[in-house]
């Protein structure tokens, strides 16, 4: 039994800007490009947009990100829905969810959901862009973090990964198989930043960041924006591009409590979020054709696969070939655009954008043949927040 809202709403427009080391523009500029591309994709006019949900990325933490003033910058005069949202990497799923609920109940007709970011500066490193975000001198017990030498999101995820790896006997070579598999998809993705083929040897030769993570275990940092426009299924049917119907939605937020009673590293919010979304869609893990998972790190992909019930705990790596660089080796249909590791890092909009492309069947050389059920995940904090979208090219 599915929920009556299954297939009643859809993503009808997608705008993906130029991605990566694109300099000379702020996040608002990228946001403007993404919404322009999205209304063109949908065949809409500017004045049709009556809802705007925005999520800044790293620039949001730096104080230069998009927020409510984006409405004025874009001259959107017909808004009936407006908000700045942030549950970190889970925000993009949540924006589409709240937009879907709003259009379903007549609060708005066309809601633009925008993620935009521009943290990369010419001559600066990606690590500096992220590690420096929002850095002020901490006080109290938080000041112990730099005193012990803890810095950056890489460290917290590496800590989670180590626990998972020791628990299940996962090796660096295993993490490398995820990285190499995703790169093989990115080679065929014109939106992707990293399109040079990768081997396991390249993976092992990439420098350590925070062991167990090599450089090639970590996502990119990108300048760019993605806009998705959400409307009702009825409206979406008559528009220019094929809709990606929203079948399932869910969230799960375990939070972060540094205490023995909460497990970190071998669980995430995907379990609860996934069950909610599966129930709404009336499908289960066995029905999923394509996965677009939030992949801030290679480890996160394995963790997510298991929490969605697509493999038993510790066995997600079994879905990957021993050498994913081998052109004869069949890849799992996971992160088919290269993901955040190889294509672009737009927080939760990376998986959703590729999910829309796959659901529409417009993935070109990387298109998955059977794409009726596309499962997209968003994940924020250190596995603290989670959102799920199940998309389909079919209304029913």
């Amino acid at each position, binding site marked *: 039994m599915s929920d009556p809202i299954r297939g009643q709403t859809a993503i009808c427009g997608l705008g993906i800007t130029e991605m990566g080391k694109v300099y000379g523009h702020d996040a608002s500029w990228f946001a403007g490009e993404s919404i322009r591309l999205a209304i063109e994709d949908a065949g809409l006019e500017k004045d049709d947009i009556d809802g705007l949900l925005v999520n800044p990325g790293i620039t949001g933490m730096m104080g230069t990100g998009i927020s409510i003033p984006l409405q004025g910058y874009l001259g959107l005069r017909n808004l009936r829905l407006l908000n700045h949202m942030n549950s970190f990497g889970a925000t993009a799923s949540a924006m589409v969810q709240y937009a879907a609920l709003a259009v379903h109940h007549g609060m708005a007709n066309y809601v633009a959901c925008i993620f935009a970011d521009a943290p990369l500066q010419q001559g600066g490193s990606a690590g500096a862009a992220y590690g420096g975000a929002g850095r002020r001198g901490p*006080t109290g*017990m938080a*000041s112990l973090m730099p*005193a012990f*030498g*803890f*810095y950056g999101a890489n460290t917290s995820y590496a800590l989670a990964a180590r626990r998972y790896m020791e628990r299940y006997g996962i090796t660096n070579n295993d993490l490398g198989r995820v990285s190499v598999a995703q790169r093989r998809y990115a080679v065929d993705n014109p939106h992707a930043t990293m399109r040079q083929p990768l081997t396991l040897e390249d993976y092992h030769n990439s420098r350590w960041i*925070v062991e167990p993570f090599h450089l090639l275990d970590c996502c990119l940092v990108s300048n760019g924006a993605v806009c998705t426009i959400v409307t009702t299924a009825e409206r979406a049917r008559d528009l220019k591009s094929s809709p990606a119907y929203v079948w399932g939605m869910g969230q799960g937020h375990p939070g972060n409590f540094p*205490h023995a009673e909460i497990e970190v590293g071998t669980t995430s919010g995907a379990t609860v979020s996934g069950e909610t979304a599966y129930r709404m869609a009336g499908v289960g893990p066995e029905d999923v054709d394509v996965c677009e998972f939030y992949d801030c790190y290679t480890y996160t992909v394995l963790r997510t696969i298991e929490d969605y019930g697509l493999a038993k705990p510790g066995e997600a790596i079994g879905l990957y070939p021993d050498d994913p660089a081998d052109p004869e080796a069949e890849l799992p249909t996971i992160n088919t655009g290269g993901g955040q590791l190889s294509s672009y890092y737009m927080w939760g909009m990376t998986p959703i954008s590729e999910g829309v492309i796959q659901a529409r069947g417009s993935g070109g050389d990387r298109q998955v043949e059977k794409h009726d059920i596309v499962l997209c995940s968003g994940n924020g904090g250190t596995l603290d927040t989670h959102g799920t979208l199940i998309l389909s090219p079919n209304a029913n």
Partner: protein
Amino acid sequence: MAYDKPLPNPDENTQPFFDGLREHKLLLQYFPSADHYQYPYSDRCYKDWSTDWEWRESTGNGEVYTWVRMHQLYHPSWKEEIPYTLAVVQLDEGPRMNTNLVNVDVDEIRVGMRVKVLFDDVTDEHTLPKFEPV
């Protein structure tokens, strides 16, 4: 050579914790109504929202919950140490602490390894609670 790494910066609420470190005591917040130890500092118990608590000395015993080797240089003062070991220690009282593991061969570190606190007086005013194998 003078110690040049970032130093703790206590505030009003956490000053007793840092004073405790100077005396080689590891203090935790204890909330009696939920029988709950909490770290890091909060003015409220996250279990039952009680604001009634006291400092209690920890045994300083625990186990390695997870650990990593930091290779990336974020602050120039770590240049000579890189790569260094960061760990999360699960204290027997319940809370987990971010810390450094010392006096241990990297090849020997395992999740679940028993450790105890070691007070490192890094300057005349500052002591850091690090951990070493039992």
